[in-house]
């Protein structure tokens, strides 16, 4: 199949792996920011193909995982409001908040509908003009423009029962926060391919300039990722930190200007709460005053109660790359995809879930995969 098979070619993959082995001489730590990269790396078994000199860490790029419990509690409380239909992407359904999840709220009678696109949510609003329809706006710069587009569409049509609960987050400020914390000692970063399609590769120039770090923007197929890793190794070995785009079939230096224009017409930058990082300045998006009639936070006055983190859960540390999932005492024992404690185990893009599903909960099995 086009666009898949050519990026999964086993012969080319073997050649790239060999090049990585040949070029890599000193121990380095690389972080893939994006959860889709994390999953792809595990799903294709890329970690075991790498030389022992390269350590891969997973970053905060799972939108579900970085959503703070307080925000999640808010969403669940809104879903329980009478008459409300809460629409959401599927990933959020099972994520445990302080006391419940959207899935549980749904089982208890709340109207929660999974949608594939904001346009589906808008259609539900058109079909139910007498009920408030709230879209749970979780995601990074990839999803925010489509949500902005739905707001503009709702305004143009005069749909007055459509609301956005914006919990959008921006990726470069989170990356800065992780680097500034000094916890993870990184040598290079695999930048998020789809986010960068929107924001442009030039948004990452601060990495070599301010932090002396190499950054590669890579796609999500195995060859994309291997090419990205090779590029990082090469740049680090040569001590020439720079931003390299190996996903040029999607990413341009300036990004997608139309998408950005939509996004910033509807949203403005604000501080945001991140799980594991707390409040990060200028790292979120809220609706502009001009569109306040679509803001669920203005429409609903709910009190979800104090937020509580599950005791013992290390999701916050895993998100920052400060800990790996097996370092958490709950991992694989109390916390599994079947009985998740923290969001990183629930989400299809969460680091703990990827470790568990694709690499096994037992050391013996992980060892078996390497041999």
């Amino acid at each position, binding site marked *: *199949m086009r666009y*898949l098979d050519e990026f*999964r070619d*086993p012969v080319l*993959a*073997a050649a790239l*792996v060999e090049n990585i082995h040949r070029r890599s001489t000193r121990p380095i730590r690389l972080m893939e920011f994006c959860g*889709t990269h994390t999953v792809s790396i*595990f*799903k*294709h*078994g*890329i*970690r*075991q*193909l790498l030389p022992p000199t390269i350590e891969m860490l997973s970053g905060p790029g799972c*939108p*579900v995982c970085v959503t703070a419990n307080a925000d999640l509690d808010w969403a669940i409380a809104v879903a329980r409001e009478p008459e409300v239909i809460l629409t959401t*992407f*599927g*990933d*959020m*359904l*099972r994520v445990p908040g302080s006391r419940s999840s959207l899935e549980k709220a749904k089982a208890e009678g709340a109207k929660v509908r*999974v949608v*594939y696109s904001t346009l589906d949510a808008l259609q539900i609003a058109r079909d139910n003009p007498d009920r408030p329809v709230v879209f749970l706006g*979780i*995601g*990074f710069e*990839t*999803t925010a423009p489509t949500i902005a587009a739905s707001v503009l569409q709702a305004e143009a049509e005069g749909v007055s029962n459509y609301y956005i609960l914006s919990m959008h987050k921006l990726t470069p400020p989170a990356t800065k926060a992780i680097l500034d914390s000094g916890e993870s000692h990184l040598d290079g970063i695999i930048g998020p391919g*789809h986010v960068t399609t929107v924001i442009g590769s030039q948004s990452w120039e601060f990495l070599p300039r301010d932090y002396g770090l190499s950054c590669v923007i890579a796609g999500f197929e*195995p*060859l994309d990722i*291997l090419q990205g890793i090779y590029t990082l190794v090469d740049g680090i070995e040569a001590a020439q930190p720079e931003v390299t785009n190996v996903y040029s079939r999607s990413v341009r230096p300036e990004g997608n200007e139309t998408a950005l224009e939509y996004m910033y017409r509807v949203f403005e930058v604000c501080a945001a709460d991140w799980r594991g990082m707390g409040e990060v300045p200028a790292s979120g998006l809220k609706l502009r005053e001009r569109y306040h009639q679509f803001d669920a936070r203005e429409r609903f006055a709910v009190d979800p109660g104090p937020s509580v983190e599950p005791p013992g859960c290390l999701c916050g540390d895993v998100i920052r790359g400060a800990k790996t999932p097996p370092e958490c005492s709950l991992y694989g024992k109390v916390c*599994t*995809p*079947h009985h998740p404690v923290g969001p990183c185990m629930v989400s*299809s*893009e969460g680091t703990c879930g990827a470790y*568990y*599903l*694709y*690499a*096994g909960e037992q050391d*013996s*099995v992980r060892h*078996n*995969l390497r041999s």
Partner: protein
Amino acid sequence: MDKILLAHGSGGRLSHDLIRDLFLPHFAAPALAKLDDAAVVEPLATTLVLPDSHRLAFTTDGYVVKPLFFHGGDIGRLAVCGTVNDLAMVGATPFYLSAGFVIEEGLGLGILRQVVASMKDSAQEAGVEIVAGDTKVVERGGADELFISTAGLGIVPQGVDISGSNARPGDLVILSGAIGDHGIAVLSEREGLAFKAELTSDVAPLNHLVASMLKASSQLHVLRDPTRGGLATSLNEIALQSGVGIRIEEGKVPVHDAVRAACEMLGYDPLYVANEGKLVAIVAPDEGERILEAMRADPHGGEAAIIGEVIADPKSKVLLRTGIGGTRIVDMLAGEMLPRIC
């Protein structure tokens, strides 16, 4: 009379009319047509003239699917094939089915008639008789249009010993065809996805395929139809039941392009998507080619392929060798598969 009324389930005149006018024209087995409280059927041994040592296989399953009709099938065909296939997966020759209908008040009679006709066709295709039935009508909202439950009875011929606990290290893993067709066809119908024209459910009775496999070799150790939870879940069940490991090759598992494309877009893994007309067989290594040949000669096994092997360690785990040469674990599905954010 074009919709189901509560009175159709009352046991009175309307119930009788419904059975006489809608069900019996399609379900014509003499044992059913007598309308006694239970079907009296010939002992299966005399039907088949089997030696005394045969055993009976007996199974039951409930069917709920939305929408009732989808590209390539409908709930009626599912209800017949699903139960026939459950019997076939222990090597049984299926003979008799029962069918229970829970109908929501207000369901169009035309819809019910179509479902029943489809059950008749599927039963004929599988070579089974529907000999007992029941209908209940529940108030609007008490059920979602139509639920069907079927039970099935079959015979396991002498010498056949097929079970999820029979996989041994060295055995080969054979898949009867491409995975994911049913799940993605139903999903695309339900969600109105644009590529549905290319997607057809694989729902089909597999008993004839199994019969040809048994004719080719007695060394069938395990058979499973990977329905809900997909191939990944079936393989995990076998690995657990047999206390073995299973290793499959990603590149050898057939997946149709339309299903691959849909899965890529939605963030699904075809290994976890439901099938209704596929089976996975674990067979003795030296019989693999012979069984594969027999499968490929059957209309439901044309794309059959050897996809992997049973290994001693790690126990109770399924490993997948990826297209680029890495290895990863394939776990059971946790919860429902949900479309992702980005």
